[in-house]
């Protein structure tokens, strides 16, 4: 509710302006607002909602691009086939594994980076410029860089790790191949995480930290009792975004292993059915399932960690 004398408060964004309630004016404002968002909204829906509905429709057919005339309605058969196939569950498991591990590493390393950047007094411009480079680099390039780095014919990793034989083939088995993929993911996205956390860190009151220090709290206590609780919102939003991003992992897998030795993600599996095999029917079913699983994960993260979505939506 608005009051006539509302001053510009700290987050006084949606405060009503200092004009008397005037229904014509409000109507005009309503209309203008809707007109201004309409093009953006229409475009966003054109490329997502409409195709998604089409996917939903196509997923009920046996439909291959190589034989478009043989399209046949099969009901939920594609979903039954997909859900009863171990490939879907294995790739889902692998995707969740990638998501959990990369986000955990990114959070810890990103937080350490944020602490350093928060405290560092020299070369701030240099460090911030450097940290933006991995963020700006094309994921495909990151994938290539690490693939070649781990290569046993032209890379350097084997010669730098003393416990490894120089002929060790990183892409020969699941464990090391997935590790290489995750290194590329973590390398590229940790800087982004650290910047988000840095913003959160900046909002923690220095006075509170100082007060805790005066009270004799150790560094660890200050972190866990003062800093982290006050950064909760920032951390949770960062985790939500990165987790969903990680769940969609595709580029690095495509470049580094092309899905070999069990490294496929759900996105990669879907891509294979649709783009490589032209199986639009079951591919669409996978697309729908992928979309639903993203929703589910978003929902779980929001509920489990009580993420303040309003802050992500900027309603405050």
């Amino acid at each position, binding site marked *: 509710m608005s009051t006539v004398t509302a001053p510009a408060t700290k987050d006084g964004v949606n405060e009503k302006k200092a004009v008397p309630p005037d229904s014509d004016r409000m109507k005009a404002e309503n209309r*203008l607002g809707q007109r201004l968002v309409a093009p953006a909204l229409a475009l966003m829906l054109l490329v997502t909602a409409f195709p998604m509905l089409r996917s939903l429709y196509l997923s009920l057919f046996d439909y291959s691009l190589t034989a478009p005339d043989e399209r046949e309605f099969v009901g939920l058969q594609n979903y039954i086939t997909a859900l009863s196939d171990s490939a879907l569950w294995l790739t889902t498991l692998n995707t969740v594994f990638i998501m959990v591990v990369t986000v955990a590493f990114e959070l810890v390393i990103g937080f350490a980076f944020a602490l350093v950047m928060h405290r560092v007094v020299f070369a701030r411009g240099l460090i911030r410029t450097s940290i933006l480079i991995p963020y700006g680099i094309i994921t495909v390039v990151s994938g290539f860089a690490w693939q070649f780095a781990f290569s046993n014919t032209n890379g350097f990793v084997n010669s730098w790790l003393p416990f490894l034989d120089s002929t060790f083939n990183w892409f020969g088995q699941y464990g090391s191949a997935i590790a290489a993929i995750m290194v590329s993911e973590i390398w590229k996205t940790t800087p982004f995480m650290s910047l988000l956390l840095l913003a959160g860190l900046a909002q923690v009151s220095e006075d509170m930290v100082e007060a805790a220090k005066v009270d004799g709290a150790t560094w660890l206590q200050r972190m866990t009792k003062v800093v982290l609780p006050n950064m909760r919102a920032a951390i949770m939003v960062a985790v939500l975004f990165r987790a969903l991003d990680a769940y969609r992992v595709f580029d690095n897998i495509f470049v580094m292993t092309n899905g070999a030795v069990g490294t496929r993600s759900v996105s990669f599996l879907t891509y294979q059915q649709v783009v490589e095999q032209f199986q639009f029917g079951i591919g669409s079913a996978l697309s729908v399932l992928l979309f639903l699983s993203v929703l589910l994960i978003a929902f779980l993260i929001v509920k489990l960690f009580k993420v303040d979505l309003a802050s992500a939506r900027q309603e405050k």
Partner: protein
Amino acid sequence: MRGTNKVGIGVGFILIMVWCLLPVAWIISLSFKSQEAITAGSPGFLPTSGGSAGFQNYVDVLNDEQFRRAIFNSIGICLIATALSVILATLAAYAIARLEFKGKRFVLTTALAIAMFPVVSLVSPLFDMWRTLGIYDTWIGLIIPYMSFTLPLAIWTLSAFFREIPWEMEQAAQVDGATSWQAFRKVIVPLAAPGVFTAAILTFFFAWNDFVFGISLTSTEAARPIPAALSFFVGADPFNRPASLLAAGAVVSTIPIILIVLVFQRKIVAGLTSGAVKG
């Protein structure tokens, strides 16, 4: 205590620099290894004395018609998508930050949902739609999805900026008899320009980075962007993956990003942090 703290930060500083720059140094180093050395196998961080190609890989890559086309496509597509996306986002963000209207929550929720959308799910229906419309393997066929997927980021960043603008000025303009639209155009646009700029850079980064649309909605050099071109890159000898040539291409494709980062570092950091987290 103070002392160890300083040492800790110094060590942290070095670690961050190594983290960020080592792989970049590596790809640059790789781009100087000669093709022959790569085929024969040339492990190690630096090129060997006999296995260095000088700038030959760069010459080759820039002489490659496909790669040049890809750079041209990427720059063109990304700039157009960025410009259009930022215009639409500016309008929307202004409305979200300043106006009360029905459906605001819906817009915000949609934007949030799209930011989380698994792009691979869209590949098959978009391909089908695009080939019906005849915009498959064209610039416009990539510009449209790039716009949709950068709009959420741009809208957030911009609305965060818009909230920090001194609105009294707009009110003053309105008191002087300007309509909401005039107030927006005359007063707010100049003030919001830095925010718009930040949104533009972030949007450009996103579009530049895209891979899934790039490989699935194109099939020739008519529209194929850099990430897709790199993944399909073939040298003179198709049976030898031209690792060092690829590295040179990768470096070339990273130069625009590094230039942008160098020039606009401050703005990007502000934009990234204000857009996503607002406590």
